[in-house]
């Protein structure tokens, strides 16, 4: 058995388990901590795919910056314990739950059976370089120069919009 498959199995199990536990928690702080665990598992999966840069970003941005935001929001809003998911089940939620499961199964069957040959599982030898910082930087400043610049405009609009909507007083 390949060591990669073992690592994948462990990381995937941690990822799925933490995601399910996250939703089922009553205390939002526990949910936030489980989310960190989930991000860590995802970062590990990225590493297995030879995407070192994305893995580092995942930890830095999500587990670092975004999580601090989450914790701050939880602290500031002074959230009470959430009602457990099971307590307020009604017919609507059951139906949407079933539909969600059906969609998930459809996708799973699709990927495992129909599209099996479309996904190239074998890694080419130069894919180790593809995820490196050097190659990503090169792509960003040549092929994807315009999208890269537009991303900065996207951030600018996000900043302006949030300040405009949240400013205390508008003259």
């Amino acid at each position, binding site marked *: 058995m390949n060591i990669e498959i073992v690592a994948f199995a462990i990381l995937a199990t941690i990822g799925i388990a933490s995601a399910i536990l996250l939703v089922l928690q009553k205390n939002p702080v526990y949910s936030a901590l489980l989310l960190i665990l989930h991000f860590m598992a995802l970062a590990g999966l990225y590493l297995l795919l030879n995407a070192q840069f994305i893995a580092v970003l995942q930890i830095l941005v999500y587990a670092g910056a975004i999580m601090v935001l989450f914790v701050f929001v939880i602290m500031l809003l002074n959230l009470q314990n959430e009602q457990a998911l099971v307590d307020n089940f009604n017919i609507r939620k059951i139906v949407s739950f079933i539909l969600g499961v059906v969609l998930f199964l459809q996708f799973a069957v*699709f990927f495992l059976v*129909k*599209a099996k040959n*479309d*996904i190239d599982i074998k890694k080419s030898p130069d894919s180790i370089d593809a995820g490196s910082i050097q190659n990503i930087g090169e792509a960003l400043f*040549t*092929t*994807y*120069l*315009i*999208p890269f610049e*537009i*991303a900065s*405009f*996207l951030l*600018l*609009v*996000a900043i*302006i*919009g949030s300040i*405009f*909507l949240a400013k205390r007083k*508008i*003259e």
Partner: protein
Amino acid sequence: MEIKSLLNILPILIISLSILILILIEAFHKKSEIFIYWITILTLIFTTFLSLITIQDQSLNFHDTIESGGITNLFYSLLLIISSLAVISSKNYLNRMQYHHGEYYILVMSAILGMMLMASSRDLMLTFLALELMSLSFYVLAGYHRKVLFNNEASVKYFLLGAFASGFLLYGIALVYGAAQSTNIIYITREFDSLLNKPLFTLGLILLLIGFSFKVASVPFHMWVPDVYEGSPTVVTALMSTSGKIAAFSALIISLYGSTASQINYETVSKIIALLATASMLLGSIVALTQTSLKRMLAYSSIAHAGYMMIGVAAANKIGMAGIIFYLAVYGFMNIGAFILISMLETSMEKRLTLDDLSGIYKTYPWFSAVMALFMFALSGIPPFGGFFGKYYVFISAVKADMTWLAVIGVISSVIAAYFYLRVVIYMYFRREGENQNLYATAAENFIITVCVLFVIQLGITPGVFLNIITRFLP
């Protein structure tokens, strides 16, 4: 060579630069709204002329990510003209609501930048970012007046559902990339035939379609439309429902255009689009029958119109593509005219205008009701106006693609829709006069309405001229 590429995308550069300049003016200058308003309008008009002048030289720039000239510039000028009409009317409306701030124009300009990029993008990464740029600006604009609850509701609903749809779009792009090993639209459309044999690509395409149909407001992703169109400030609704739709359709047409080459493999996707079109047309027309709120009625009519345009996408032939662009132009002018007319009656953002507010209005404001009636006739597709030819070309394309049933459903739903459009006319002319009818008309509004009326009539009398221009630039 890079300098040449920069010159080719000059319209986009000018708009981006003007956004940065406007931000600086807004930051360092008190009471800068009027100043910003004029700069915005001048920039929009200048860019329109620029893109019309350079329409002949077609080229691909920056590693095939962005196209300039030809059909792209046609979309630019369409988007810019229609957006500038909405911008011109904004000043008086926002002044009346006592909420006139420079940020409005900055956000509108960023939305326009996003829309222009959607039309010119030839790379799915750029298309996604452009769509997000447009949507993000619209989310904020929908909730522009943060003290009005309606605006907050519209903004939150739009944001939550929009973020959900973006997820579908991004997943679709990821799957398409997985199947095609490239995000370049030109490459993907060229290889369309062989790629459609891969189930992964088909699934990606369908998810892409879901993402786009959310933005063009077609069934079953229409749930946000009535609430958002009704809740947002009317000038913002005018912009969203016209330019936003043009931009989303331009991206959809461009990413599906290669499909015209392969009718056989395209059939699955085509059937799905035809189904979406049927549902949108019928639901839009039938639900609009029961609406009394004017903006809500126009929102459902916008869903129905998205359905008519989807017919052209399903038919996927040249006349269909040209028909959609023609339809988009006419729809833009008549819808923006109708929304601006409604905005002229509004006294506050909390008030929702109903049909009763229009009753008997022709006695006090004969011109207003005449123009409103004209837009309603045009929207329902009555011959002398442009709306008729928009529908005509789209239905022709369905017949040519062996989908006559789709055209028949289109005609049936137009007949149903005529009821609620004409009801507006009946209220205006044959009902007893209502109370407190005030019309806030200034030179700016009169100018916009005149432009819209001229275009709607012009496109109805000589539709061939514009159609020839479109077909010349279609590849």
